[in-house]
């Protein structure tokens, strides 16, 4: 018994058996398909919940969802959002974000802004390829954010559904923010 064990150990040592065992595993993998992607040509399928670049959304009728409440700015752990809100000159008493900046170089993609937004104006998309030679272009302004929202509308909506921010397309229509009505200008001029 003991001798048998010792003989085995000796043989193992002499024959480098553990190496052969390991080589067996390695060679077996030669028959596998490669696990890697050839990135620019092949791309991963990205799950719906993926937290990519942020975009701003509009309602179906084209109205901007964002009312400039600045809650995303408050929620952001990396302080990368800056909202400048004011009264919409064309629609009295309606608040909107006249400027909206996300410093994407500072963004940590935590998705808190989306979670915070009380009108679901922000959503994350599957967009991740926006590297650039000019760092200044990484300060996304309102126009760029709406562009992203428009180009990746489907992804953005899927993101919202996946993260329980909106129920579905049908019900999301009910989630519209209604502004307080201004007193009629006519009434003002009457009195």
């Amino acid at each position, binding site marked *: 018994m003991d001798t048998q064990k010792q003989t085995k150990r000796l043989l193992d040592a002499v024959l480098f058996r553990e190496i052969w065992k390991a080589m067996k595993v390695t060679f077996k993998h030669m028959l596998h398909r490669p696990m890697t992607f050839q990135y620019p040509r092949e791309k991963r399928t990205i799950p719906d919940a993926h937290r990519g670049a942020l975009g701003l959304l509009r309602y179906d009728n084209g109205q901007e969802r964002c*009312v*400039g*409440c*600045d*809650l995303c*700015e*408050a929620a952001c752990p990396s302080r990368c959002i800056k909202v*400048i*809100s*004011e*009264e919409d000159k064309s629609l*009295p*008493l*309606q*608040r909107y974000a006249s400027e909206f900046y996300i410093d994407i170089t500072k963004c940590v993609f935590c998705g808190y802004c989306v979670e915070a937004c*009380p*009108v679901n104006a922000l959503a994350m998309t599957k967009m991740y390829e926006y590297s650039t030679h000019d760092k200044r272009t990484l300060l996304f302004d309102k126009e760029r954010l709406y562009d992203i929202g428009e180009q990746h509308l489907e992804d953005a909506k899927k993101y919202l559904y996946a993260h329980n921010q909106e129920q579905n397309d049908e019900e999301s229509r009910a989630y519209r*923010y209604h*502004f*307080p*009505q*201004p*007193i*009629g200008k006519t*009434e*003002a001029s009457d*009195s």
Partner: protein
Amino acid sequence: MALKPVTSPDTEAATIALNIDGETITAKEGVSLYDVISSMGKIVPAMCYHYTFDPFGSCGMCLVLQEGKKSPVRSCTAKATEGMVIRTDGEDLFAARKKAVEKHLSVHPLDCPVCDADGHCELQDMAFEHQVTDLANAKQKNIPEDTRSLVLDFNMNRCIACGECINICKDVQRIDALQFMKKGGFTQVVAKGDHALDCEFCGDCLAVCPVGAITNKFSKYVYKPWQLRKTTTTCNYCGDGCQMYVETKDTEVVRVTSPLSWKNKWGDRGDTINGHSGLCVRGRFGFQFIDSQDRLKEPLIRKETGLVPTPWIEALDTTAERLAQVKRQYGSEAIAGLITARCTNEELYVFQRFMRTVLGTNNLDSSARYGHMNFVRAVHHALGINRMMNTSADITRAKAILVVGANVTETNPVASLRVKAAICTYQASAIVVDSMQTNLAKLASHPAMVKPGTEGTFVKGLVKSVLEQDLIDPDLASQDPQALAALKAAAHAVSLETVAGETGVQVEMIQEAARVFAEAPRSVIVCGEGILRQQDGYDHTLSLIDLAWVTGKLNKPGCGINTFAEEGNEQGAVDMGVAPEFLPGPAPYGHATARQQFSEAWDATLPDAQAGKSLVEILEDCRTGKIKALYVVGENPLGTLPKSFGVEEALSQLELLICQDPFMTETAQHAHVVFPACTFAEKDGTVTNQEGMVQFVRPALDPLGESALDWHIMVGLANGMGHALPYETTQDIQTEIRKLLPGYYNLGQPRPVAADPTAYLRNGYAESVGARYGSRGRTQESGRPYGLKLIQLIYHSGKLSTKASGLMDISPNTGTLRMSLEECERLGLAEGGRVRLTSDAGSLELGVQADVNMLPGTCAFPEHFNEPPVKDLVRVVVDPVTRVPYFKSTQVTIEKI
């Protein structure tokens, strides 16, 4: 109303003991139970309560359980009584309070995203604190937002009907501009009569609104409270020295808020004698000038093509060199300096040191010269003090208030609340002497509407009446018999009938006023621009001192003579010695010990003890060419003084005019060098308010553009001239002031002053008093029938406020003359129209506007506006003693065209 402050100066309420949450506590009988609970440090939630007014009891949150009662009681409206046993906490009370919150929430709109109050909202706090979730039957009101007012928007969907706005307007401001009205099925807050709100716009309703029902138009929708950086600083508009919060976002000022707020609601009603910590329209809504587009952003130097932007280093260098050259060529006497009293104490101090030691001249003056100096010189001369005698608490507690020529509700709105509280809450008698129907006159028990410019005569009448009715302080006969005799002799020249004839007030009224003033246990005098800025202001102030002295109101506690300062730091300008007659302290300039102390501290020889020219003399000497260089810091004599005074001519004679200002003023346009200065919101330092409190000014913003702090520029110039001033920070200057004027800062508390007229009464009083009462008062001018007054508006302060777009929105320059309704009708101008206004100095045409506050025989134009140039109709009269230029009133004829 029994819940008014129960302890007034005259009656003391009984002390009672009651048991709250197992603790025995003593309180005054009759105070609100809520106040007693909060005085223990226990906070019972309440949304409609604020200590500045009587409990209203609408929110139903402040429930407590009283032993022996089944259901909870509202602690705010309940009065504390002996032996009460109270419980303030518990599940049942929490549930009851939660129900009360739910009631408010169930009709509240889902407005948080767009509401300006979000994050600073009591309803939010209460809902969150009481963990309200899933309300059944929530419904929304749909009331349109009232945006008719110029300043405030009323969104009544958000209103919780707490009534705080209405109560503060009624009980504290005494304006009573708001009311509840049932409209569209809901109780709403509307302006009285449901018109567009048109009030003083103090904005206290905005401050106390616990929700976002009242919002501010100037910062509507541009912020959320959590984005703002709050800086506590002191308001710069008038001498009240209100504390305020300048709230900034990056580099812009978003809004100004007051310590008065729904967040700051606990206190004793009696505390309001020191002020209610609110603001006025100027402080709250006049902030836009701070980051205005018109601000100067870089130094300018006059070249052939005009004023050219120049780098600081070059500008300072050139200026210092040219100053040095003027000094070399013409001597120090050829240089003079003017500074505005809106600067901080430290800047004023550095200015006078710079002028006196670096330039070696005593030709320096501040804008306190326009009027405040009359008061300071008079009380300095007669009583040995340098500022007003009473605190705001004294004024609130007074039993009789004599307000002479002081439209304080317009010039010093917040301080005027103390007078209003004295009249309305503490039932003081008020004698208001003015040539206009001022707000105080409407509240006063004894309004005395005098003809324009005869306020001083009325005061003499009062003195005479006191003597006649023998209301003299009994101690006087033994203390200063000679002075009393001299006064009596002098008063022979005055007859009450003449006074009545000149002023238009009946003799009985004068007698009555004198009696009220003399017999009250605590009488205070408040005088203002109607005395100090009118001809013979110095003499009239001395007459007021006579009045106070002869009735024994000089040294009794709670009595005294006061003035309210018009510009932010007029008192500081005097204290820092920015006047040819004063050294810091203020010590008289000729005082040998003081001169030695300062020359040692500054390691320099001071200019001659007799040297020194004041504002008027400086400008005259500029004209005659004796002064070659003028350094103007924030002042604007060209925009302030009438054309006939020849300021423009004087300035054009100068070889070097240096202007240092945040804005391009009329004077700066003539300057050879213009330095961009900072506004108070960028400065660090202190200001002294009229009461003598030294208050901090803290920087809310970095200096705009390349503008620099005033004292930085002065130190830069001094360095350029080879006399380095040893200051690197504001603290360095403060340390020096502390060393030289021990106790000046006094932890921000006013140092008590003791008036001592003895020396004054025993030295030459007899000689001067005769001349004073013997003079015929004002000289009648050319028989022109109307008195024209340049008045101050509540919405403006000097010329500075005209740079604040908010205030210009509220009160634009209408360019119209204000006249009484009767006069308008008499002239056929009831519908408006244009008139030709002619005085001895000239004439001009302008529109007319009826003003209910004007009296027949007077007309007025706001002094803040130079368009049309009504100020040029006035001739400057200079006071023979104090050299104060008087140019606020004249006689005119009015013709309709």
